[in-house]
Each structure stands twice: as structure tokens, then as C-alpha cells.
């Protein structure tokens, strides 16, 4: 499996950038010729991860979000979303559906959505250092050029 293409970008952790991050990932993933449903799944998962950086990792503080993605010759998109925020004390707990530390209008479904819309989701985190989400999805080719 070799990497065909790759991009990296750094964003300010501002909520206005949630739609920008989705638009970038969807334009990049388009190279794998995904279905509309696959694109929507990827956009949603990225939106959840980026929102987590803004709402949880940085909260009231200012920070950057580091996004990278690669496309493989086996038609897999791998996405990495990293922050240098507060980190997650208990990853298992954080990933439980409906669990949220901020309450109010947050549903506590961010990780559940990532896991159900992507094939693979990995979370690594260190308190006070930050969190990295790595996720991947195999894209079915809509048109097979080789017949």
C-alpha cells in the first residue's frame, strides 16, 4: 500500500473554520471518486473531530488545529486531526455515547458519529499536551475505469 497524495494544513481553532475544514477534506477525498454518501460520512466525521478541538481541547483558550490526510493506492483515505489542547483524561469514558463534559446543547455523540461513519477511529491523548484522532475509510469506486 503506497500513499498517492497527501496534504497538511493548520487552522485557527475557530468555529467558523469547521465548514472550511469540511470543504477541504471533501475536495481532497473527491480524488478517490467517492459516492455522495461516502463524502458526507467523511465530512461529518471531520466536523466532529474539529468541533471537539474547539469545544473541548481549547475551550476558552486559543489554539491551532493540525489536519493532514492521505490517499492510498488501495483507495483508502486516512485523516489525522491533532490539537495541543487540554487532552482527555479518560478516553474510554469520552467515547461513550451521550457522555459530555460541557452539557447544555452538546449531544455527547461526537466519537459515536466518527466511529459509525468511518471504518477505523483511533484516539491518543495526553493530559495537558493534546489529542490526536486518526481515522480512515475505504472508498468504493463509483466507476471502475479498468472495467
Amino acid at each position, binding site marked *: 500500500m503506497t500513499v498517492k497524495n497527501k496534504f497538511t494544513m493548520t487552522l485557527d481553532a475557530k468555529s467558523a473554520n469547521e465548514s472550511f475544514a469540511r470543504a477541504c477534506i471533501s475536495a481532497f477525498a473527491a480524488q478517490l471518486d467517492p459516492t455522495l454518501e461516502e463524502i458526507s*460520512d467523511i465530512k461529518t466525521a471531520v*466536523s466532529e473531530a474539529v468541533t471537539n478541538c474547539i469545544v473541548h481541547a481549547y475551550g476558552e483558550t486559543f489554539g491551532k488545529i493540525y489536519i493532514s490526510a492521505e490517499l492510498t493506492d488501495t483507495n483508502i483515505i486516512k485523516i489525522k486531526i491533532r490539537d495541543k489542547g487540554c487532552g482527555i483524561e479518560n478516553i474510554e469514558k469520552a467515547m461513550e455515547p451521550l457522555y459530555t463534559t460541557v452539557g*447544555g446543547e452538546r449531544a455527547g455523540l461526537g466519537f459515536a*458519529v466518527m466511529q459509525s461513519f468511518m471504518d477505523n477511529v483511533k484516539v491518543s491523548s495526553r493530559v495537558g499536551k493534546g489529542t490526536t484522532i486518526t481515522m480512515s475509510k475505504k472508498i468504493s469506486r463509483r466507476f471502475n475505469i479498468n472495467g
Partner: protein
Amino acid sequence: MSVKINVTGEVVTAYLGGELDHHTAKEMREAIDNAVELNMPTLLILDFKDVNFMDSSGIGLVMGRYRNLVKTGAELHITQAPPQIYKMLKLAGIERLAKLEGR
């Protein structure tokens, strides 16, 4: 992001449009809550026909409105949810709180 409110008798319908994420949810929420406070409906309909993207912030929006409505005994319906949004609402088990209709 857009919200159009229509009031007919005891029914408030909010026609939502555009992208529903953490960034846009606040404004949508305020528009809906203002209309509910003002009109005290027995039924709130959230129409998703023109929503072209929604993440779990949309689930939070629906759950929050449900919590408010329950206090007054009012009902919540979700109509015309596009397939991807319907999938998301199902994942969250929203049909236990509100009548859920796809597009």
C-alpha cells in the same frame, strides 16, 4: 444557515436551511426558542428539507428543543430529513423523543 418561522394556530414550524454545525447551531437555536417562547405552541415542527449538512450539533439542537418542550407538554416533529441527516437522527435515537419523517 437560515431559519424561517411559520405560526399557524398552536403549531410553530421552523424551516431550517444550509449547514447545521456547532458554528451555526446557536443562531438557529435562538430563532426557534424565541418563536416558541412567544407563541407557546402545542406542536413544534422542525423542517430539515433545505439542510444540506448536519453533524452532532444538530442532534444537540433537537435534544435541547425537546427538553424545553417537555416542560410545557408540547410535542416535537421532525419532517423532510434528507437521507444523511435521517441516518444521523436515527443513530442518536431521536425517534424516541420526536416523530421522525424522512424526505
